[in-house]
C-alpha cells in the first residue's frame, strides 16, 4: 500500500547526490513544452532516476519526444505553482477555510463518499466491498453517489483507456473541492497487464493526481477497504493543507 509519495509540505531539500541528475532535466524540460516552467536545480527533490538499460526505442522521437521517459508531464507540472489555486478571499477571510479545515477534515475523514464509477473488473470487487458481506459502510463510506457534484472520492476501478480518459478527467474536474483519488487495481496503478496495450493509459497518475494506490488484480474487497482507511488516515494527517497539495486541486488542460 504505497501512499502517494508526498514530500514534506512546502520546504523541499534537494539531496546533493541527485543534483547532477536534476541538472540534466532543465535542458530537456525546457525543450518539451513552452508553458511548463524550467525546473531550477536545487528547489525540488529530483526523481530517483533508474537508467532504463533494458530497452531503447528505435525511433528516439517515439514516446516522449527525446526526453527521458521517467519524467512525466504531470510530475513536472506539480512542482510549479501553476497548479495551486488560491482561494480568492479578502484579507482575513483567506485564513478562515484553512483553519476551519482542521475540524472539517476530521468529519470528512469519517464520511468519504465515493463516486459510483466502475470501469471494469475491479468495479465488481468494489461493489462486493460495498454490499453486506464485507461492508464499507462501517466506516461511513457507503452512499456511492451517482453524480460527481456530491462525491468526495473518485475510486477509479478498472482499466482506463485513452477514449475514456477524456470523460474521466471531466468527472474529476467536476467534483467539488476537497476531493481525493484512489487508484484501484493494477491497471490504474501502473498499467498492469495492459502495460503494452495501444489504447490504455498506463497508470492514471499520468492524467490525474492520485492519493492512494491499491495494487491487486482485482484486489480483494478487504484490500479496497484497507486502502480507504489509509485514505481516511491521510486526510487526518494533512488536515488544513488542502491548497498546498503537491499537484494542484485540478488537472491542467494541456497535460
Amino acid at each position: 500500500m504505497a501512499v502517494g509519495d508526498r514530500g514534506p509540505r512546502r520546504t523541499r531539500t534537494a539531496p546533493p547526490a541527485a543534483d547532477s541528475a536534476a541538472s540534466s532535466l532543465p535542458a530537456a524540460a525546457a525543450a518539451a513544452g513552452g508553458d511548463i516552467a524550467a525546473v531550477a536545480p536545487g528547489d525540488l527533490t529530483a526523481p530517483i532516476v533508474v537508467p532504463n538499460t533494458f530497452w531503447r526505442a528505435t525511433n528516439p522521437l517515439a514516446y516522449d519526444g527525446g526526453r527521458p521517459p521517467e519524467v512525466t508531464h504531470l510530475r513536472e507540472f506539480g512542482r510549479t505553482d501553476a497548479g495551486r489555486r488560491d482561494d480568492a478571499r479578502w484579507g482575513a477571510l483567506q485564513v478562515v477555510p484553512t483553519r476551519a479545515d482542521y475540524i472539517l477534515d476530521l468529519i470528512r475523514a469519517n464520511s468519504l463518499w465515493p463516486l459510483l464509477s466502475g470501469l471494469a473488473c475491479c468495479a465488481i470487487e468494489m461493489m462486493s466491498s460495498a454490499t453486506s458481506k464485507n461492508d464499507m459502510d462501517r466506516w461511513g463510506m457507503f452512499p456511492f453517489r451517482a453524480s460527481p457534484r456530491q462525491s468526495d472520492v473518485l475510486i477509479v476501478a478498472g482499466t482506463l483507456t485513452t477514449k475514456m480518459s477524456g470523460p474521466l478527467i471531466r468527472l474529476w474536474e467536476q467534483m467539488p473541492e476537497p476531493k481525493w483519488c484512489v487508484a484501484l487495481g493494477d491497471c490504474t496503478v501502473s498499467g498492469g497487464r495492459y502495460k503494452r496495450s495501444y489504447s490504455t493509459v498506463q497508470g492514471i497518475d499520468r492524467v490525474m493526481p492520485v492519493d492512494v494506490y491499491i495494487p491487486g488484480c482485482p484486489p480483494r474487497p478487504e484490500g479496497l477497504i484497507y486502502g480507504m482507511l489509509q485514505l481516511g488516515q491521510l486526510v487526518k494527517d494533512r488536515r488544513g493543507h488542502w491548497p498546498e497539495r503537491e499537484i494542484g486541486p485540478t488537472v491542467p488542460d494541456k497535460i
Partner: protein
Amino acid sequence: MDRALKRRLEARLGAQIRGPIRQRHDQTEIRIQPGGLPDVLRTLHDSVDLRFEILADLAGVDTGREMQVVYHLWSETTPDWLRVIVEGLSREDPRCPSGTFLWAGAEWLEREAYDMFGIVFEGNRDLRRIFMPPDYTSFPLRKDFLLPDDSARSPGEGVRHMERPFAPAVVAGDPADGVRRAPAS
C-alpha cells in the same frame, strides 16, 4: 468430420470453392473469392439440406501478404462448425461485400473488422470505427502495427521482438498451411 457435409457442399457450391474442402476435428473449412460471397452465403442459408442459420462469428485476419474475412456458421443439419474463408483481399485496399443482407448482426462485426484491419465492407450501412476514437488514423490489428513495448524484451529464443519490423516471409502459401516462417532475426 462430417463426410456427408463435404459431399453436400461440393454438390451445391462446387464452382465457387477454391482449393480442397479441409476437415479436422469438428470443423469444415471452405475458401471462396470475395466476389462470390453474397450468393455463397445465400445458398448456405437458404438451401434445404444446408440451412446455416446461426452466424457464430465474422473475423478479419491479416496474414502478412493478404487480408481474409472468416465466417463461422452453425446449422442443425450437421454436427460440424462451417468456416468460410474469403481470401484474396489486397492489403492496400481490402474490399469485401457485406453480409448484413442475411444477418443484421454482422453490421457491428464488420465495423470491428474495419476498425481493426481497415477492411471496407460494401453494403454495410454504418461502416465507422467502433472501438477506437473517431479520429484515430491507423488500424491496430494489422501485422505492421507493432505494440509499444514498455516491458523488457520477453525471454525465450526465437520470440518475435516487438521493435523488429514484421517482415512477412517471402515463402508462398498461407501461414496456417504448415509453412514455418523463419523467426525474424
